[in-house]
């Protein structure tokens, strides 16, 4: 164990922190070193990056029940009067 060796747990945390551009110079070196030798944490980085990219595009096609829409319409009418 030396100064530059970090665990997988720490490395995944640094991956998350890196995404926000908040790594110190030491952390950058530690993370780069770890990712070079650890394919599991490389996968973690790739997969969580991918999840973040797709989370914003979640699209569901939900339809409100008619009675809900009617309620909304009458609420709008009420304030309009």
């Amino acid at each position, binding site marked *: 164990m030396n100064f530059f060796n970090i*665990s*997988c*747990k*720490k490395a*995944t*945390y640094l991956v*998350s*922190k890196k995404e*926000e551009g*908040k790594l110190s110079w030491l952390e950058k070196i530690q993370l780069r070193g770890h990712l070079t030798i650890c394919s*599991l*944490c490389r*996968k*973690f980085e*790739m*997969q*969580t*990056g*991918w*999840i*973040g990219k*797709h*989370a*914003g*595009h*979640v*699209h*569901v*096609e*939900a*339809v*409100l029940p008619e009675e*809900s*829409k009617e*309620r*909304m*319409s009458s*609420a*709008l009418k009420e*304030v*309009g009067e």
Partner: protein
Amino acid sequence: MSQVLLNPDKWVDLYADALYSYTLPRVNDAALAEDLVQETFLSAWKAREGFKGDASEKSWLFTICKNKIIDHYRKKAKDIVQPLAEKDHSDNYFDEVEHWTQEDKPADWGIDYNSALDNKDFYRVFEACKKKLQQIQQSVFVMKYMEDLDSAEICKALDITASNYWVLIHRAKLQLRGCLEKNWINL
């Protein structure tokens, strides 16, 4: 002027389903999503004089709706003032020397990470996985990745410190990744 640009009579017909579809995956609760859509319309009605027509009626309503969603998270954060848990479920993914455990180590997903995703299964599983997160983790995740807020805004809205924010985001990602792997990749 605003009467010309806005058609409140048509709002429900034109936008209710779209706003609802947007809100639902962000709050995970049908009744709540419906309430937020209704509040969106009422707030829009009250603010109609301020509508200058810079944006379309639709995107103006969506902006109001987004603010309703963030407000909801802000209020919810106040209700659940709890110190950051020292232990989290995701700690179990690592062994005593903090290496991935055999059971929870990332597997090969066998997908092209650069290709577009058009997969209903993914989103269904994603929703289910998101629901399993602790409320505060969900809030942070949705605000960052689905509402595109920056970390300073999120910390302020949820009244959490920057370092708590890292930890929450990180735990959310660990768990979502693990849950997706178990339930979507291995479908």
